[in-house]
C-alpha cells in the first residue's frame, strides 16, 4: 500500500490538519478495527492519535506524520488490548459472521477461519501480520511502528504465519 505523506501547506494550521485528517482518518480507523479485532473503540483510538498530532503540531507539521499516527494507533490499540486481556482468558463464543450466507463463498469461509485463528496468536504476532498483510508495510516500516528490530519483525511474522498454517491444517 502506498501512503502519501502530507504536503506542506502554505495555508493555515486548520488547512494542514484538514488535509491530514482527510488523508489518514478512514484508513487508520480501519487499521485500528483490524488490530483490535472489532470496530468497538476503533474510532476512539484514532481520535486520540489525531489529538496527539494536533497538540504537537508545531513540531510534527514540519515533517511526515504517517509514522507518528501509525505508531500512536498501534499503541492505542495495545492499550485497549491490555484491558481486554483479562476478559480474553474466558472468551465468549465467537460472534456470528456479519455477511449473510449468500455473500459467503468458499473463499470467504476460509478467510473467516484464518481471521479466527489469527486472533488466537500473541498480540505482537497479530500486529506484525496485520501491518504486513493488511497495511502492506515493509519490514522496516513495521519495525518503526512497533518499536522493535527488523529481525524481530521477521521472526514474529514467520512464527505467526507458521502457526496459522498449522491451525488451518488441523482445521481442514
Amino acid at each position, binding site marked *: 500500500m502506498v501512503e502519501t505523506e502530507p504536503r506542506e501547506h502554505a495555508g493555515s494550521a486548520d488547512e494542514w490538519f484538514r488535509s491530514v*485528517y482527510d488523508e489518514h482518518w478512514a484508513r487508520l480507523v480501519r487499521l485500528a478495527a483490524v488490530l483490535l479485532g472489532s470496530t468497538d473503540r476503533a474510532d476512539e483510538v484514532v481520535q*486520540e492519535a489525531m489529538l496527539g498530532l494536533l*497538540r504537537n503540531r508545531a513540531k510534527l507539521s514540519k515533517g511526515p506524520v504517517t509514522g507518528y499516527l501509525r505508531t500512536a494507533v498501534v499503541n492505542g490499540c495495545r492499550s485497549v488490548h491490555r484491558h481486554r486481556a*483479562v476478559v480474553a482468558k474466558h472468551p465468549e463464543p465467537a460472534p456470528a459472521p456479519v455477511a449473510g450466507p449468500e455473500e459467503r463463498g468458499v473463499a470467504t469461509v476460509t478467510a473467516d477461519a484464518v481471521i479466527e485463528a489469527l486472533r488466537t496468536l500473541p498480540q505482537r504476532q497479530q500486529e506484525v501480520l496485520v501491518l504486513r498483510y493488511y497495511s502492506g508495510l*515493509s519490514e522496516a516500516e513495521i519495525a518503526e511502528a512497533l518499536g522493535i528490530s527488523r529481525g524481530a519483525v521477521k521472526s514474529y511474522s514467520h512464527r505467526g504465519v507458521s502457526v496459522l498454517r498449522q491451525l488451518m491444517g488441523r482445521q481442514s
Partner: protein
Amino acid sequence: MSNEWNEIGEDEVTRALRQGLQAEADRTPVPDRYDEIVVAAEQGRRRRGWLLVAAVMVPVLGAVGYLGGRLTSGGLAGTPAQVPATVTAAAEASESKQSASASARLSPPAEVSGSALAFVSPSGAIECVMGGTRAPDGVECHLTVKAVWGPKHRCESVNGTVPWSSDYGVVFIGSEGATTYCNGQGFTELDLSGSDGKRYTSWYDPSRFETRTAANGSLAPVLPYGTTAVVGQTRCQISQSGGISCSRGDQTGFRLSTQTLVLRNGGKDTSYTG
C-alpha cells in the same frame, strides 16, 4: 511488493489472511469525528494557556498579597479561590473554616471524588487513573521510576510472564482483583490532560491544586498527601513514606511504592520487596 521477507510467496493461508483482514476493514464504519477532534484540541489548548497564566499570576498575586498583608499589619489579603463543586461537603466545611483564617494558602481537601479521576503523586513517582474507560472496575497505577522490588517480581503479559519494569508495568484493581500487568507502554500513551482530561479530572481546579508534568509530558493534577481520591467503591490515598494505597470495598487493594508492592485479594496480602 519486493520479497524482502525472504519467504516462499503467498499460499492459501496468507491469501485468505489478506482477504479476511480486508473484509474486516471493509466492514468497519468510519464516522466523521473531525469537528470533535478540533474542538477537543482547542479546549486543551485554552486550558494549557489558562494554566500558564495562572502559573504566572499566582506568584505575582501572592507577592502582592504578602506586601498588602505587611502594609495592613497582618490582615487577610486576596480573595479566597472558588470552591470546586465536586469537593465533598466535609472538605467544603473544612475549607470554609480555613478561609476565615489569616492564611492565604488553602489546605488540600480531605476527599475528592468523581466518576473518573487521574492524578500524579506530589513527587511525580506515581501516576494513577481511577474509573473511566481506563480502569472501569477500580484503579490503575504505575511508577515512573525504578522499583526496588521490580526485578524480582514477574507479572503477566499477553506473551507470558515477564519481569516488572516501570517502563511498562501497571498495578490495577480490576474485575479479577488486585494484580499486575506488564505489556505495552505503561502510561506513556495516556494523556492525563488530553481529551479525556475533563472526564478523568472532574475534581480538578488549577486555582487550588498543584500540577506536575506527567511522564508523558502532559500536565496532570497532583493528589496531595492526605487527600483521599474516591471513585465508586475505590479509594486511594498517597503518603510521603508509604506510596499509594488503594482499596475497593471487597477486601481488594494494593500498596505501591518504589520500596514495596503489596497486593491484597480476599483480605490476603502478597508482598514484594527488594
